[in-house]
């Protein structure tokens, strides 16, 4: 034992964050208040998931269960799924249609409309003059907790902070430009996959912004001899730092970009050969040369186009070491059957079984396991500098967007993030 140790507090900064942020229940609780219920917009789902009046879908803001509903006049509402009477879960299904527009808690049959307003209370006046609520009882004071809801290009967001800037300003012009490219025409839903990781949500948020790991952790392309040396990559950040987009594209004016498979076969002298390269086929369908677009919108969604796969990945925080990733896959509304089949084939690349993505689930769990008991020790995020830049190209040798995430996160958390007492030699 060294008796010459003293205790010193050290603040987390974007290049060095205390590992306790992945484990500490107090940090997790503070995040629910300062981040998820704070001055941000949280992704709730796609308009295409609830196309008809009365359609609803269960969702989350952080750990808080909310329900997304399309009302009779086509307006979309969201409310916390917690009865104003005893706190019971009101809507018990993952999705469905409430044709009469009433959501009834099964416990005492309190009934709410699509907006979350209380519209019915059994035995409100009691029976034969006995029981019931006081004359002053005002149903309007007992509605479900409502979120402010706004959509951008079919992506629906909600916020508990009723006074913050409109969604469009929160996203900013750079993020909107890339959302526009994916949602340039109407979409149709293809389905879901849910992945449950024994890791903190921020490890996944870092992962989706981290281009450094791409070619090092995900070895599918090099294993099959697919080297895309002529590709161009770039990363852009929103002003706050915490949203980013990462794209990989072919240089303009290059040879026809028909298929990764074709390119693979040219360069595949010694490597293992794919038996069926339809898996990798890419059919450009947006008017640019981008084959990979991964966009992380703080705090809880990733929007992607990888080859011809289109998806949102919603992050749900069930606990400090329990994170659910809800993959919502979609295509375009005018896809024919063959195009859909092609997308399904491409989907082998992504998701919980994705040939170029499954490793992320393992990587975040390894970081969770490795940082147990590491309070007062810090990660090291200095690849490619120690600053946060709005534009970084080429990407892959930097952690610019990871620093951007921490910059935005630390600003929102402020004093709510407790500092660790660390021991240093006197």
């Amino acid at each position, binding site marked *: 034992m060294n008796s010459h140790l003293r205790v010193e507090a050290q603040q987390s900064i974007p290049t060095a964050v205390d590992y306790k942020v992945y484990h500490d229940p107090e940090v997790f609780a503070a995040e629910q208040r300062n981040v998820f219920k704070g001055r941000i917009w949280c992704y709730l789902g796609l308009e295409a998931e609830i196309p008809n009046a009365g359609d609803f879908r269960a969702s989350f803001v952080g750990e808080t269960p909310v329900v997304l509903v399309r009302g009779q006049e086509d307006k979309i509402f969201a409310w916390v799924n917690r009865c104003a009477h005893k706190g019971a879960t009101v809507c018990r299904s993952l999705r469905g249609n409430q044709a009469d527009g009433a959501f009834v808690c099964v416990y005492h049959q309190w009934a709410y409309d699509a907006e979350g307003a209380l519209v019915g209370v059994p035995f409100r006046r009691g029976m034969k003059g006995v029981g019931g609520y006081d004359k002053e009882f005002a149903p309007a004071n007992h509605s479900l907790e409502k979120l402010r809801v706004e959509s951008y290009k079919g992506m629906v967001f909600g916020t508990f902070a009723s006074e913050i800037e409109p969604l469009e300003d929160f996203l900013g012009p750079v993020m909107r430009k890339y959302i526009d490219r994916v949602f340039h025409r109407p979409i149709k839903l293809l389905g879901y996959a849910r992945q449950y990781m*024994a890791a903190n949500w921020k490890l996944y948020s870092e992962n989706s912004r981290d281009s450094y790991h791409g070619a090092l952790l995900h070895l599918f392309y090099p294993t099959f001899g697919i080297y895309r040396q002529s590709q161009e990559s770039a990363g852009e950040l929103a002003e706050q730092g915490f949203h980013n987009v990462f794209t990989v594209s072919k240089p303009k004016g290059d040879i026809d970009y028909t298929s990764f498979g074709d390119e693979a076969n040219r360069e595949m002298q010694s490597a293992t050969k794919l038996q069926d390269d339809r898996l990798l086929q890419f059919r450009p369908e947006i008017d640019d040369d981008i084959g990979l677009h991964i966009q992380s919108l703080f705090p809880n969604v990733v929007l992607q186009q990888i080859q011809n796969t289109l998806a949102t990945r919603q992050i749900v925080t069930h606990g400090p070491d329990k994170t*659910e990733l809800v993959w919502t896959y979609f295509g375009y509304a005018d896809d024919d059957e063959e195009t859909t089949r092609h997308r*399904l084939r491409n989907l082998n690349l992504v998701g919980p079984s994705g040939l170029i993505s499954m490793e992320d689930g*393992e990587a975040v769990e390894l970081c969770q396991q490795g940082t147990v008991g590491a309070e007062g020790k810090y990660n090291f995020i200095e690849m490619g500098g120690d600053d946060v830049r709005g534009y970084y190209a080429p990407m892959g040798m930097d952690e610019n967007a990871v620093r951007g995430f921490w910059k935005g996160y630390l600003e929102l958390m402020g004093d709510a993030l407790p500092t660790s007492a660390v021991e240093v030699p006197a």
Partner: protein
Amino acid sequence: MNLVDPALQGFVDSLNAAYGLCLDDGRLEEWPEFFVEDCLYQVIARENVDNGLPAAVMYCDSKGMLVDRVVALRQANVFPEHFSRHLISRAVITPVNGNMVSAEASYAVLQTRNDGETRIYNAGKYIDKLFVAEGSAKLVSRTCVYDTHRIATLLATPI
């Protein structure tokens, strides 16, 4: 209820038993041999099937694609070290059309990782089309419809 030809029932159940053991023993390179060349193998959430949505977590519409999966698992993909254990029910054989047989069976895949705990990893049912001839059965298509729509960490080894 029609009595299924016991020999046919035996072919299908034997295929399923051998299929499960093949994966559980880690003989992944033999796994594509349970399928015909022009096959379809998919692993899809029950919530998608019930809602008429086609997205699957694995979708291989050729035997070559199954082989590619195995090569990727062996050489490229990173996942938690684990054992799998398939428990597969007796098949219920539905219509038979010449050599083409439709069958369904329930399965549970248990998984044991390095911490030593055995967990129920994936439960569901196989919806199969088989080609039965000359005393053996091969899969023309196998759709693994899983109830466990919360996939723990990731899904690497086929179901």
